[in-house]
């Protein structure tokens, strides 16, 4: 009788211990799976984002200005595989004495893959004069740049 009673305790203990191990293990398993999915998704998204950054290709294809020199037209050609959002900065130097400098920008223009967009950059201060050198920088939101130099005509 005594031996039978004593025999129950280890069995129950084993069952309880196993249940605890399974419960804790299952929780850890579930957490690990969730965490691995989140980590993998983050990593893949980061890699895809980086991939878009390295596949971005665009150039300043053409530049001109209007007759009174108040507006600069910049054509951006996106010859890459992904759509881009560009900010165009133009820095003009007037060589007349004394030299003056004029800075303008046009932000947030979308150029689809394979497309070309004409971007207007307005000069509020001194208008461009013939021969003024304009340094143009097209900056994409993925941190790529294209540069061009233009002489006002």
């Amino acid at each position, binding site marked *: 009788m005594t031996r039978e009673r004593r025999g129950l305790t*280890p069995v129950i*203990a*084993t069952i309880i*211990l*196993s249940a605890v*191990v*399974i419960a804790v*293990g*299952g929780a*850890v*398993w579930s957490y*690990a*799976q969730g*965490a*691995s*999915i989140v*980590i*993998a998704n983050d*990593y*893949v998204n980061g*890699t*895809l984002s*980086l*991939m878009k950054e*390295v*596949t971005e*290709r*665009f*150039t300043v*294809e*053409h530049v*001109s200005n209007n007759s009174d020199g108040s507006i600069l*037209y910049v*054509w951006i*050609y996106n*010859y890459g595989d992904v759509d881009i959002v560009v900010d165009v900065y133009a820095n003009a130097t007037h060589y007349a004495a004394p030299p003056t400098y004029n800075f303008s920008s046009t932000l947030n223009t979308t150029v689809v893959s394979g497309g*070309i967009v004409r971007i207007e950059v307005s000069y509020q201060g001194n208008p461009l004069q013939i021969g003024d050198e304009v340094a143009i920088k097209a900056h994409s939101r993925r941190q790529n740049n294209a540069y061009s130099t233009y002489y006002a005509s």
Partner: protein
Amino acid sequence: MRTLHIMRLRKGRGVSTVLGTLIFIGILFSAVIPMFLVMKQADTIYTQKVHEMENRDEERASEVVEAYGYPVNETSSELMVRVANNGVVPIKIVRIWVNDVDYSQNTMVASLETEVLGPFPVSLKDGTSYVVKVTTERGNVFASTAGTLYFTDGYWFTPSLGIHVLVLNWVGKYKISIYNITWHPEGYETQGIDFGDIEWSQLVDEPGGYTVSVMKKKGGDWVPLPGTPIGVVITWPGGSPVINVIADGRDF
């Protein structure tokens, strides 16, 4: 009795260890390994794309295009554009620019081939310069080699006429001459054995027929390359002001 008791305890511990190991292996195979596989796959796609873009950049850098804009005739309001692809990769012309006006194109030009595009209507204004540019699909922009076209007093003017010779070469010494019946300038001779392609341009005074001769030195003798001497005609306006001649001296 005591020994038996210890054995029972060990049996109990063993179950937990086995379960713990199974759970660990389960986590390893169902969470960690798939995670690393997905990450590895993303890395592979990224590396593949980087290599693809490197190839595209190399192809872009290897584009060699000569473009010539010219009017249909001396007083025409239409321009033609001759595009010579002197590079090793085929190109696709996507746009022609005449000053600030662009004309969409979709023309493939194979390596070492020439295409004539147009006519492109232009609004003529006396005393105005016209700059012709060609844009390729890979993002290169090539300005007209003939320079700026100038329209004044109802007529077109261009800075110069010429003949451009490209000799495809691995190794050799060459002599190039361009002449016609009344005009026989000195020509060009490479100074020694040259490795790589040879280019030479000759300006000419007026449109008309010219003969282009390309000779290679073989065993002490000057031997004409196959296909040369060849006659070319500059028909500007109405044709390109610059003529391209390509001779192959590689297997000769």
